[in-house]
């Protein structure tokens, strides 16, 4: 019997140690990146550039919050980039062509996104399509709709206060869109960690049948999560339109992949049940800092793509190896 205690003691110590490792892995990567660019570029380490990075990651960050929820329940949402474009075009059409007040048009844009997400959710829960296929279908449909609305033309001429949401730094510090991202991230982190509704999502991703038998309404939760992901894509569209000072039907092309990459770099598992907002935010910043730093160094966008791909592979490899070692 003494042998059994001898076995468990070092084992539990090892687990808690690797938990620390797992939590800090992406963070260590981010810090190393920052050190690297601070040394190699004279412009990188400044308050001004820090705020620039924040501005640049806002759209990706808002999308990644929704994607974290989706991936935690074991799903995937390929439609966010196209839903972003469709929501953006809906908002533009409502304001420019239908004459709605912009505030109301923004609400329509967000609701459009939510409706698209709900459609994915229903395809998954009612029609029993795999999430990959359902959101692939919605991705195609919404990209098409975004182009149909204006026959592929962009919409310009938003009022000045709208673009100022993304450009004016309140108190010389944060723009409204960046502030929105930060507030949303904090709220989502709290819900995932401290609210039963958030914790249930991990159980759904870990094993949906276990969750169902434990009394969780898995289908309802799935629909809500996809609708939230869509709504956040709608909100990201607003932030993006403010930054671009226009609505573009080609906006957000390929964003779903960057978003998934950010969430996975942040430690979430595509098989579900694992993930965190803090990890995702770090993942978003790793991508943001990498882009920003490489731009400052004058590295070509093509080379950047290669490097980002390598970073994704490296991050997930370390994560998987760490997990296997446990």
């Amino acid at each position: 019997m003494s042998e059994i205690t001898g076995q468990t003691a070092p084992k539990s110590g090892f687990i808690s140690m690797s938990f620390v490792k797992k939590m800090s892995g992406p963070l260590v990567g981010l810090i190393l990146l920052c050190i690297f660019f601070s040394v190699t570029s004279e412009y990188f380490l400044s308050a001004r550039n820090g705020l620039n990075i924040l501005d640049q990651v806002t759209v990706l960050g808002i999308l990644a919050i929704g994607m974290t929820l989706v991936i935690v329940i074991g799903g995937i949402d390929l439609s966010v980039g196209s839903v972003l474009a469709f929501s953006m075009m809906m908002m533009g059409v409502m304001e420019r062509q239908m004459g709605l007040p912009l505030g109301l048009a923004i609400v329509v844009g967000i609701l459009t996104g939510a409706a698209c997400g709900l459609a994915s959710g229903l395809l998954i829960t009612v029609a029993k399509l795999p999430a990959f296929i359902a959101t692939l279908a919605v991705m195609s449909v919404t990209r098409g709709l975004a182009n149909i609305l204006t026959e592929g033309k962009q919409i310009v001429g938003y009022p000045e206060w709208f673009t100022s949401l993304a450009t004016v730094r309140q108190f010389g510090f944060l723009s409204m869109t960046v502030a929105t991202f930060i507030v949303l991230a904090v709220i989502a982190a709290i819900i995932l960690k401290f609210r039963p509704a958030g914790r249930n999502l991990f159980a759904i991703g870990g094993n949906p049948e276990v969750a169902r038998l434990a009394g969780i309404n898995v289908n309802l939760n799935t629909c809500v999560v996809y609708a939230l992901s869509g709504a956040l894509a709608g909100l990201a569209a607003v932030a993006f339109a403010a930054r671009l000072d226009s609505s573009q039907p080609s906006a957000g092309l390929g964003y779903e992949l960057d978003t998934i990459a950010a969430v996975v770099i942040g430690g979430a598992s595509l098989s579900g049940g694992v993930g965190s907002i803090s990890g995702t935010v770090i993942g978003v910043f790793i991508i943001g800092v990498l882009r920003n730093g490489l731009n400052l160094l004058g590295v070509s966008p093509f080379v950047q793509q290669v490097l980002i791909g390598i970073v994704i592979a490296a991050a997930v490899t370390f994560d998987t190896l760490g997990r296997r070692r446990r």
Partner: protein
Amino acid sequence: MPMQPDRQTENQASGQAGEVILSVRNVSKAYGKITVLKNVSFDISKGEVVALLGENGAGKSTLSSIIAGLAIPTEGQMQWQGKPYAPVSPSDALAAGLGLIHQEMRLLPELSIAENIFVGRLPVRSGRIDNLEMYRRAEEQLKRLGLNVSPATKVKYLRVAAQQQVEIAKALTLNARFLILDEPTAALGGEETDRLFEQIERLKREGVSFIYISHRLEEIARIADRVIVLRDGELVANFDSAKVPVPELVEAMVGRQLDRIFPHLPAPTHKPLIEVKNLSSAEGDFHDVSFSVSAGEVMGIAGIIGAGRTELVRAIAGADPVNGGSVSVDGQVIVLKSPADAMAAGIALVPEDRKLQGLVLDHTIGNNIALGNYPRITPRNWVTPSEIRSFATTAIKRFGIKGGPDQRASELSGGNQQKIVIARAISAGPKVVILDEPTRGIDVGARSAIYDVIAELAKQGMAVIVVSSDLDEVLGLSHKVLVMARGRNQGILSGAEATRHAVMERATA
């Protein structure tokens, strides 16, 4: 692999008269500092069935993995047909003629029986797969096992028992002279078990040797020639005959006397807590089942595999749809649309498969116990990790779970995992508790702890329903036994009526 001199040890179990085909000498296996197998030696003769017994974690799987080339021993050596044998991969073992049939099937469901048998070595003629030859050879092996099924049938259409025989057929086409069967009867009914035993006998006569691993001790005397027992990685007993009384086997396995396995149950009340009337399944799995269970009463449900027992209790717990009939708890008829409905009415289910239906294996014990219980952890709809930990710690103490709240559920033994699932179900404060196969795959020693928990639930005034394929368990644990066959209630037996004979008669009706 470091070699050790071949020396006789006290642990050695010698074979019966007959040609020794496999001899294992001083084999040890350690993972890091943890030794899982210590200095094990034994011989197996041609055409012999040796039962390998031991609790979960005793080293049975490690030993069979070493013989089958899935694991490499840290020390010791083996001889196969008189020559040194040191497989480093399953294909080495198979090439030598040793095969391992896993507890969980490793077949490709979308492929045919023949393709499964020949996967990785499909017969080829002039660059194309020779289907005729493949079917002919597959059919030959199926006949040898007495299986009357077309080799072109897709494996997913076969029952578990038939799938297992495909595994055996696969090993036989590789000219296996030695098979390790790991829990082959865990998912089989009585008739299917008989069939398997006939096949083992037949292959034995052809000179094939077996290591037979099972938790069902009653089977051992029927099928094995000898018994060896592992405990904590050591070979602690070897019986030259398999006609060993079950209590003696249990004692060898757990290292202590188990005088009474089933706890005493006080007489139940006469206050029916759950009443099921004319309940039928929407999928046709059971029809017109009625019964009632009182507070403090334990009702067993017996029957062979496929009798509709699991489907019945799942429907009562809201997990599967019903079609007609009613379920009432405490006199109130309840609407059963989802597990959440049943739980709200006070019905809790401990499902059949704890790994697939009971636990999120990668999550912590604390999160597994907390799942679905948040309203009871805190009234505020706001829960902190420390609240979860203290809630789980209470349940861990109450049910005697060996593990901490932050440990992952996958690291625990079957018995402790089962206790986590029970702890979650009971934390909801149910009136009716349904346990489906609560001791499947759990060692003998840990089973009695589960029985104690079940008796305790009844003593606290819950109505308890236990589905089990283990007849002794159903009879020993219950006030009354509902017997099902072909989806119907074949009678409820209690007191002196409830005998093995009476139950089996109705179960096979």
